[in-house]
C-alpha cells in the first residue's frame, strides 16, 4: 500500500548531490512530491527533505541506495505521524483587495496568515502550515484575484529523540570523526 513518506538525507556540501539523489528516484519512476535542502545546525552538513508517496518496501530500498552515495552520511524515512512538518506559502494580491476591508482581514485572521508587505500595486500574504491549509487559504483568496502563488517544499523535524544530531556536532568539532 502506498503512503506518504518523508525522507531526510544528511550530506556533505558537494556539487551534484541533488542530481545524484534524484537519479535514484527517476530510475524507479518515483515522483517526488516535494524537496527542500539547506544547511543543518552543523556547519557544512546539508539536509534534504524529500516527500514521496510510495510503498514502505520501495522507500526502504530507495533510502538504502541513497545511502550508497559516498557523500551521504545517513538517510532516514518516516511516516507523517512520526514527524512535525511545515510548508510556507506566499500569495500576491492586487492592492484593491484591501479596499474590501474587514472581509479580507477576517480571512487572514481565521487562517493565522499575515501580510508581509504592501506596495503601491500589490500586497504579499504569508502563511505557513500543511499543504491542505495553505491550499484552503488559496481557495478563499481567489475571489480577491490572486496574481501569484508559491508554496515551498516540506521541512520536517523527526519526533523520536535520536542521537544522529549529536554525531553531527562531533563531526563539526573534529574532522577526524567518522559517522558510524
Amino acid at each position, binding site marked *: 500500500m502506498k503512503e506518504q513518506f518523508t525522507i531526510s538525507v544528511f550530506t556533505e556540501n558537494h556539487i551534484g548531490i541533488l542530481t*545524484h539523489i534524484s537519479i535514484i528516484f527517476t530510475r524507479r519512476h518515483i515522483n517526488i512530491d516535494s524537496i527542500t535542502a539547506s544547511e543543518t545546525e552543523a556547519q557544512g552538513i546539508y539536509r534534504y527533505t524529500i516527500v514521496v508517496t510510495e510503498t514502505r518496501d520501495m522507500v526502504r530500498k530507495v533510502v538504502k541506495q541513497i545511502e550508497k552515495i559516498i557523500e551521504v552520511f545517513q538517510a532516514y524515512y518516516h511516516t507523517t505521524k512520526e514527524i512535525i512538518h511545515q510548508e510556507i506559502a506566499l500569495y500576491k494580491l492586487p492592492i484593491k483587495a484591501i479596499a474590501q476591508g474587514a472581509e479580507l482581514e477576517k480571512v487572514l485572521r481565521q487562517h493565522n496568515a499575515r501580510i508581509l508587505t504592501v506596495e503601491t500595486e500589490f500586497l504579499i500574504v504569508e502563511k505557513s502550515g500543511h499543504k491542505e491549509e495553505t491550499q484552503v487559504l488559496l481557495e478563499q483568496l481567489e475571489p480577491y484575484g490572486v496574481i501569484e502563488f508559491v508554496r515551498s517544499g516540506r521541512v520536517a523535524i523527526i519526533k523520536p529523540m535520536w542521537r544522529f544530531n549529536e554525531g553531527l556536532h562531533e563531526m563539526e568539532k573534529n574532522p577526524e570523526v*567518522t559517522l558510524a
Partner: protein
Amino acid sequence: MSEVETTKSISTDFKDSSDLMVPHSSKTIRVTGCEAVVKSLLAEGVNTIFGYPGGAIMPVYDELYKNRDEIHHILTRHEQGAVHAAQGYARVSGKVGVCIATSGPGATNLITGIADAYIDSTPIVCITGQVGSHLLGTDAFQEADVVGITMPVTKWNFQVTKAEDIPTAIAKAFYIAKSGRPGPVLLDITKDAQFNEIDFEYKQCKKIRSYIPVPTIKMNKIDEAAEIINKAEKPFVVFGQGIILGRAEKEFKQFIEKGGLPSAWTILGLSALESDHPLNMGMLGMHGNYGPNKLTNECDVLIGVGMRFDDRVTGDVTRYAKQAKIIHIDIDKAEINKNVKTTVGIHADVKEALPLLTNLIKSRTHAGWIAEFHKLQQIENEKIIQSEVFPIQGKLTMGEVVRIISEKTNGEAVIVSDVGQHQMITCRYSKFKQSKSNITSGGLGTMGFALPAAFGAKIAAPERTVVAIIGDGGIQMTIQELGTILQTNVNLKIVIMNNNYLGMVRQWQELFFDKRYASTYMINPNFVTVAQGYGIESKKIESRDNVAQSIQNMLDHDGAYLLEVIVGKEDNVFPMVPTGASVEDIRLE
C-alpha cells in the same frame, strides 16, 4: 580522439604571488597539475595504464612520456578498449585498473566499460581530460558533461578544476574504487588544473567521514544464521563474486566443508571454488545446471554469499525459493532485501563473516541431499552435456571446443568470454583450479568486452595462459584492438566461435518468435585474413579431426594467435530457464 585544439589553453588561474613566497615544507615539491597526476598514480603503485590521448589530456600524456620507464602506458585503438582492458587487468590482478582518455568523445567512449564495471563491481579509476575551467558549460570544443553522464554508473566521480585538489582527489579515487563493494571511479580534470603549479605532497586516503566501506558485523545475525543452518536438512549455498573480491576463497571453502553445504555459483563467482570440489554443484541461472536450478525450489535453507540475486539467477522472483529460509551475506546493504526477501540479512565483509559462521555451525555431510544434485546432474549429463562436449557427428560444437581448451590448459588458464551463447557454454564447460580465472561481462552483458578485457588480463598476468573466447558478433565490436596486440606483441590466444549468427538472439527468435530471424544473420569478413593483416597468426577450422591439434598448436605458438572455429549454425544452449519462468521450470530441450 586525437583532435588537438588549435589554440593552447592558457592558464588563467595562477595563485597570487604571495603564495609563491611561502617556504615549502621539506615534504612538498613544486609541480604542475599533470606532474601531480603522474606522481599520485606512482604513489598508488600504478605501473600500467590503458588509454588514448587527445587535446584536453595532452599535458598528462606529456608527463606519462617523461615517466615512461615507471608507468607502462598502453595505447588501445578505441577508448572502450582501454576501459575494458583496465577491467580485465583489475579482475585478474585484484588491483585497481587505470584508464585515461581525453574530454568529450574520448570520455563518452568510456561509458560502456564504466557501466560494465559498475554493475560487476570492478575497481577501476578512469581519468579524463576536460576543457579549461573558464570554458565549462559553454559547449566548448570536445566538451561533454562527463561527470553528469557518468553519475549513475560510477561509485564516485569528481571534476577537478584546481591543481591543488589533484592529489587528494586521486587518493580518494583509489580508496573508493577498491574499498567496500568495489566499483569504477571517474576523475575529470580540467586542462588548466593540469597546467597550474602546486606544492605537491601525497597522502593516501584511509577514510572518508561519510563513507563506511566495511560494516561492523552484528553478532546476533551470525547466531541466528548459524542456528538456521544447524537445523537445516537441505541447505544450499549460492555464491558470487563477493568471494573473489573479498579474497575469501579459503574462508568460503572452510565454511561449506564444515557444514557439508552443496554450493553453486553465479558466472561472476565462477573459479572462486575449484571446479572439481565435491561440494561444487555447478552453475546457477538461466543457462545454469539442472540440479542447482531445480533444487533451489526444494532446499530448506538458501544461503546467498557475496551475490545479489540478479534476475538472470532467480528467474521469476515471486516463485524463487519460497519454501526456504533465506540467509544473505553481502557487503552492500542495499542488496539485502532488494530482490529477495531474506530471513536473516548479514551486512558484512564475507571474509570476516564466514569464519564467525563456520565456528558456530555443526559438522555435517548432508549426503542424501547432495545425492539429489548428483541424480539431476546425471540426467543433464545424458540429455545435454555428453552430446555437447563429446559429440560424434555433425558440425563442431562450442562445448567440445571449450572442453578441449580447458583440458589442454589443465584448467589453469585465464578464460575470458564475451557475451552470448559461447559465454554460457564457456562458463558451463570450463574447469578451473584457481580463483580470478574466469573473466566475463556478467551484469551488463557487454558484447565486445572479451578481446580488450583478455588483453588487459594478459598484461596483468603475463605468466598465465589467457584465452579469449568470442562470438563472431562480439569480436567485430572491438576488433580494432587487434592493433593493440600488434603493437605490444602480447601473447594472447583468441578463439572465435563462428556460427554466422548473433546466436543467443537467434536462439530466442527460434524459441519465442517462430524462427523469424530478424537481423541476426551475419555475413562476416575472412577473420584469418583480418588477423594476418594485424600480423597475428591465424587459422580457421571446421572439422572435428583437427580441432584438438589446432587448439594445441594455438597454445604452443609463441605469440598471439587467432583460431576461428566454424560451429553449428543453429545450435542452442540448454538447459534454459525462459524469461518469466521459475527456476524449477528449467527446460532441458
